[in-house]
C-alpha cells in the first residue's frame, strides 16, 4: 500500500477523438466512455505498481479532419509527457495518428478496423476484429437468412464505401455467396427509391448497404415502402449506434450488422454498459465499449511495466495476455497481441436490432440471443 498523503504522479493518457465535425456523433460518445473507464480505474485505486497513480486523460478534438489529426497528435505528444494514446475511431484519422505515434515512439491502442494499421507499425495495437474479418462475417451471416444467398451490395462511392465493398466482392466466391448487384451511389442523395428499384429488379434476397447514417435511413425506409422482402445488413459504424434506432424506429427491428464489441458479451460488459447508461442515457455502443476495454489493457500494461515511460508501456502492451477482467472484454474473451499488433484472438460479432437494443447473434459461440427472422 502506498503511504496516505503521498500523491503518486498521475499517468498521462492521450485521447484523440473527433468531437466536432461530421464524425462528432460517435466521437462524443467515445470521450464519455474514455472518461468512464479512467474514473473506474482511478476509483479502484489507480495503477498500484506506480504507487496508486491515477490515469489523467488528456482529450483532444481532431475535428473529423486528417490534417487536424496530424497536428493535434503532434501537439499532444510534444506538449505532454504521455505514456500512451488511444483514438481516433475513424480509420482514416487513426492511420494518420498512428503514423505520428510511430515516429514519436508512443504506443497507440485503437478499435479502428483498417487492416493497414497492422502493416509496418510496432507502436500500434489493435485488440479488435479487422475490416477483412468484418466482410467475411457479413457474408457468412447472409447464409443464416437463406441457403442460397443472393446479395445486392450498394455502397457510397468514396474511399470508405469502395474499399469495404471491394472486400466483400473478393471474399464472396470463397464463402459461397452470390453477388447479384454491385452498385456505387453518390452519398447524400435526396431519394433512395430509384436505387431500391434497382435492388428489386436484381432479385436479391439480402442487401448489404455500405452507407453513412442519413443514406441508410432513407434506404431502410424505402425498402419498407416498396414492400421488398430483403434481409438488410448495415455493417458497422453509424449502423450500430443508438442514434440509428432513434432515427429509424421500429423499422430497424431485425436489421443485421457487424461489430467488434457488444454490451451483451459478458458480465463485465453489462456492468460497464449499465454505468454508461446511467451517465449518458444510451446503451454503450460498439466503439465506446471497446474503448473501455482498451483503457483497461493500458492499465494492465502500466501495472506490469511499473513505469510511465512510453517505451516500457509499449513493451508491456506487446506482452499483454489477458483472459479475464475488463481488459478481456472482447469477442471470445481473450486478448494477446501478435508481432503486427493484432489481437491473435480477435473476431467480429454479428449483431441484430431487437427491441431497440443490439443483440449479439453470430457466430454461434458468441450469440447471446437467437436470430430474429423477419
Amino acid at each position, binding site marked *: 500500500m502506498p503511504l496516505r498523503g503521498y500523491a503518486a504522479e498521475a499517468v498521462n493518457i492521450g485521447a484523440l477523438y473527433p468531437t466536432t465535425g461530421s464524425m*462528432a456523433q460517435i466521437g462524443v460518445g467515445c470521450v464519455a466512455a474514455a472518461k468512464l473507464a479512467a474514473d473506474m480505474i482511478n476509483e479502484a485505486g489507480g495503477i498500484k505498481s506506480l504507487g496508486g497513480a491515477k490515469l489523467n486523460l488528456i482529450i483532444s478534438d481532431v475535428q473529423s479532419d486528417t490534417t487536424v489529426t496530424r497536428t493535434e497528435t503532434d501537439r499532444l505528444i510534444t506538449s505532454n509527457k504521455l505514456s500512451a494514446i488511444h483514438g481516433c475511431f475513424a480509420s482514416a484519422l487513426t492511420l494518420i495518428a498512428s503514423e505520428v505515434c510511430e515516429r514519436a515512439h508512443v504506443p497507440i491502442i485503437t478499435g479502428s478496423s483498417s487492416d493497414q494499421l497492422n502493416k509496418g507499425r510496432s507502436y500500434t495495437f489493435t485488440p479488435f476484429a479487422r475490416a477483412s474479418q468484418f466482410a467475411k462475417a457479413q457474408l457468412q451471416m447472409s447464409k443464416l437468412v437463406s441457403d442460397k444467398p443472393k446479395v445486392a451490395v450498394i455502397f457510397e462511392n468514396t474511399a470508405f464505401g469502395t474499399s469495404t465493398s471491394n472486400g466483400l466482392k473478393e471474399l464472396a466466391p470463397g464463402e459461397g455467396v452470390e453477388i447479384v448487384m454491385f452498385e456505387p451511389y*453518390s452519398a*447524400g442523395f*435526396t431519394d433512395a427509391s*430509384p436505387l431500391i428499384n*434497382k435492388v428489386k429488379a436484381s432479385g436479391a434476397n439480402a442487401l448489404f448497404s455500405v452507407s453513412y447514417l*442519413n443514406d441508410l435511413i*432513407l434506404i431502410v425506409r424505402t425498402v419498407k*415502402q416498396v414492400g421488398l422482402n430483403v434481409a438488410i445488413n448495415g455493417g458497422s459504424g453509424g449502423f450500430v449506434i443508438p442514434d440509428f434506432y432513434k*432515427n429509424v424506429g421500429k423499422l430497424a427491428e431485425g436489421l443485421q450488422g457487424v461489430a467488434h464489441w457488444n454490451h451483451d458479451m459478458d458480465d463485465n460488459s453489462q456492468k460497464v454498459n449499465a454505468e454508461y447508461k446511467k451517465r449518458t442515457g444510451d446503451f454503450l455502443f460498439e466503439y465506446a465499449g471497446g474503448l473501455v476495454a482498451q483503457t483497461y489493457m493500458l492499465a494492465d500494461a502500466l501495472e506490469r511495466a511499473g513505469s510511465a515511460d512510453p517505451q516500457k508501456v509499449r513493451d508491456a502492451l506487446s506482452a499483454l495476455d489477458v483472459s479475464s477482467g475488463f481488459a478481456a472484454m472482447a469477442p471470445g474473451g481473450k486478448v494477446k497481441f501478435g508481432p503486427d499488433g493484432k489481437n491473435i484472438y480477435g473476431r467480429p460479432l454479428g449483431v441484430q436490432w431487437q427491441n431497440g437494443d443490439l443483440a449479439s447473434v453470430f457466430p454461434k459461440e458468441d450469440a447471446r440471443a437467437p436470430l430474429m427472422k423477419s
Partner: protein
Amino acid sequence: MLETVIQAVINGLLIGGIYALVSIGVTLIFGVVKIVNFAQGEFVMIGMYISFFLATQFGVDPLLSLFVSMPLLFVIGVLVQHFLIRRVLGPNDMPQIFLTFALSLLLLNLALMLFSANYRTVHTFYSDEALHINGLYIPVAKLIAFVVAMALSGALWVFLHTTDLGKAMRAAAQNPDVAVLMGINPNRVFAVAFGAALALAGAAGSLLMPFYSAYPFVGQVFVLMAFVAVVLGTLGNVIGALVASLMMGVAESLGIQFVGADSGLIVVFAMLLLTLAFKPNGLGGGRMR
C-alpha cells in the same frame, strides 16, 4: 421493364415536386428582386427544423406545421429583404452575392451550433406507408408532398396573374422603372416577393420532414438542384422552374435506374448542358411568366 420505367418516372416526379418548391422560390426572387439568393437552401433547413421541433415538442404533424413554417418564413423573408437586401440593391451585383452567400454561411453555422450535426427525423404514421397499384408503389408521404407542392405552385401562379399585388410584381420584374412610374412601390413588391419565396422554402422543409432527415447541411442538397432547375427553366420564369424541376427529378431517377446509381446527376447536368447549347435562355424562352 415497362413497369421499372414507369416506377422510375413516378419516383422522379415525386422528388421533382420538392425541387420545384425550392427552385420557384429562387426564380421568383431573381425575377422580381433581381438577385440570386444563395441562402435559399438554408431556409428550407429552417423550415425542417421548425417542423421537427413542433413535432417532437408539441406532437404537431409535420404537414400541419406548414401553417406555422410558411407564415414564419414569410415574415423572415420580409425582414431580410427590408433590413439586408434592400441596402445592397443597385447596379453592382457583388455586394448582393456576398450578402446572400454570407447569410447562407451564417445560418448554416448557427444551425450547427444550436442543433449540432446530428440527423433528426420525424416518424409519422404515414412515413413508411405506400400505395401499391399493379406492382407499382407510391410512397404516401411523398405523394402528399407532391400534391401540396403543386397546389402551392398553382396558387402562386394564380396570385401573380389575378391579384393587383401579383400583377405589380410581374410589372416590377419586367421593367422596374416603368413600374415605379405607374405608382408601384418597389420596396413593398420586393418584400412580398422575398417573403413568398421563403414561405415556399419553408413549405418545402415541412413537406420533406416526414420522409427526410433534418441536419444543418440539408439545404445544400436541394439548392444545387434548384439552381440547375432555375437556369434550365429560364431565370425568373416560375412555370419554367416548375417544369424543369419535374424534368430533372425524372432525369435523375432514370439515370440512376439505367446508367448507374452514382450517375443520376450526370444525366441531369447533361440535360442542362444540352439545353444551354441549343436554347441558351433556357426552356422558358427568357420570359417571366
